């Protein structure tokens, strides 16, 4: 399957050509996947990869375009997950305002985006390794706060009995509809980031990553641009949080623990931060490994295994799987030019 992703647009191209062969093949394959996949593969592999791909995408937006590596993306997703549990229905006998999904979801995503902007506002004073450390501190603090707070977060048990809604005559908690729901939101987020990367704001973000000092000297309020990037990343992470709580049917401090925060970072780095498709590739690899490698190597060794895969990929290709692909592709192109082919 070709993943060739071209963003060079000439005015003569129609929309199909602009989309590129790689995108079309990928889209068709993802649409047809439910025809061959079991329910388990649809949700536990497909849906779960798409959700974590979206989380990785929100990190890719910040890190790849903005040069800000965050460990708090799962925290942001957790805020919208908790908001869904609190604003909608749960069976934990606490809170649960019973709002309909179409009211609860926008509020949950808004809460996540605002929380993300706040985290961004706190952390944009730092750079590089310090951004990682301050976001890790925020993620850890939120985890412990959620564990100890019963009034809002219901302590370490969190909320259970949260269900994806049924509307338009479709029960979205069923395997196939839920997969398509995840696919729809993932494609939407992916397309938005891909388009946005060449928008005015996308360019300002990449320019700030390359040289914040010069951006100030061109009239830009650098901090405001960074915080806005956090807000946008928060929308994507917030949407992923909604899907995550519908997928699990529950949310607890364990959902937003440090191991989950590191999973998101591993996914984004393994996949590659250069292009928004990277985190989705990384998510598929990590979810497949989490699902099957545990049976083979056992739970204790699993972290060692994933750590080694992480090291190998970072060592062999700093741009992750995307970078590996970029190295193989020129070979393939040359082979296809050989006489007789």
């Amino acid at each position, binding site marked *: 399957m070709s993943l060739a992703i071209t963003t060079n647009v000439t005015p003569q191209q129609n929309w199909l050509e602009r989309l590129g062969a790689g995108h079309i093949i990928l889209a068709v394959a993802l649409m047809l996947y439910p025809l061959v996949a079991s329910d388990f593969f649809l949700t536990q592999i497909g849906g779960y990869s798409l959700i974590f791909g979206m989380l990785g995408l929100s990190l890719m937006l910040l890190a790849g375009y903005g040069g800000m590596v965050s460990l708090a993306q799962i925290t942001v997703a957790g805020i919208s997950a908790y908001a869904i549990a609190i604003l909608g229905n749960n069976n934990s006998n606490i809170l649960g305002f019973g709002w309909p999904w179409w009211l609860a979801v926008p509020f949950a995503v808004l809460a996540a985006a605002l929380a993300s902007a706040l985290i961004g506002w706190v952390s944009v004073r730092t750079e590089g390794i310090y951004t990682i450390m301050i976001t890790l501190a925020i993620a850890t603090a939120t985890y412990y706060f959620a564990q100890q707070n019963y009034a809002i977060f219901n302590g370490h048990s969190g909320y259970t009995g949260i269900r994806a809604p049924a509307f338009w005559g479709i029960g979205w908690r069923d395997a196939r509809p839920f997969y398509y729901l995840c696919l729809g939101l993932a494609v939407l987020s992916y397309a938005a980031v891909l*388009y*946005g990367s*060449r*928008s*005015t*704001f*996308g*360019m*300002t973000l*990449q*320019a700030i*990553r*390359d*040289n914040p*000092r*010069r*951006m*100030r*000297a*061109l*009239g*830009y*309020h*650098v901090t405001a*641009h960074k915080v*806005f990037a956090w807000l946008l990343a928060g929308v994507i992470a917030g949407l992923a949080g909604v899907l995550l709580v519908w997928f699990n049917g529950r949310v607890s401090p364990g959902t937003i623990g440090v191991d989950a925060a590191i999973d998101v970072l591993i996914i984004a780095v393994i996949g590659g931060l250069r292009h928004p498709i990277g985190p989705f590739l990384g998510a598929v690899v990590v979810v497949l490994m989490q699902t099957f490698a545990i049976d083979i190597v056992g739970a204790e060794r699993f972290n060692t295994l994933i750590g080694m895969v992480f090291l190998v990929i970072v060592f062999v290709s700093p741009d992750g799987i995307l970078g590996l692909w970029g190295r193989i592709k020129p070979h393939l192109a040359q082979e296809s030019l050989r006489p007789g082919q």
Partner: protein
Amino acid sequence: MTESFAANRLQGSGAYALELDGVARHFGALVALSGINMRIAAGERRAVLGSNGAGKTTLFNAVTGDFLPTAGRIRFFGEDITDLPPHERIRRGLRRTYQISQLFKGLSVLDSIFLACRGVSRRRFSLLRPATSDVNMVQAESILNAVHLEAYRDTLVATLSHGQQRQLEIALALAGAPRFILFDEPAAGLSPTERRDLVAILNALPKHIGYIIIEHDLDVALRVSEYVSMMHNGRLFKEGTPQEIEADPEVQEIYLGGKHG
């Protein structure tokens, strides 16, 4: 004192682009700038000369706010900008170039200039891709031509040659209707042809745009400026016309006669 040269010359006009009063900058114990008083009229073109480490770049950093001065006040077209953040100073029409190019390695040449135009315009947060007919894109294209980079329109900045990067440095400072520009050694490392181009570009700037140019090459400096300030050890110690400066015995001793560079 030093400012009296400029002040006398401009008596009655009253319109200063830049006024510095007692500006100083310390780096720990190091006094990089001290007691700088300067008056530059709107539209005036000034050269600042001085040996390495004299404090010329630090002077620029104080004016643009890259590094705040430790003492003194700075006025830009009459407005006190001493406490403004850099981007607010830029939006008032101040621009600068850097001695060491400060560019966006991951962007194309055109996109870099587009951002320079957009920085002092509206829709800086737009999530839409700019159309080719976008006002700022059109401006960017014309600046691209003005600095002779049209052949490198879509080239990644990281792959430009040194000379082309210096041209882009200047392009970024010309964007968006500047009123006053600080050029920090724009000719450094350029070939003779590129220097000629640079002089042509500077002389072709609209008359109302004033600038300060830091330049080691006296030939270049004298061809693009009408007035010269000499710096030494963080102080302005002489101002005058190019002829006065060249003839001044003190200047000859410290700067022109001895080693400089």
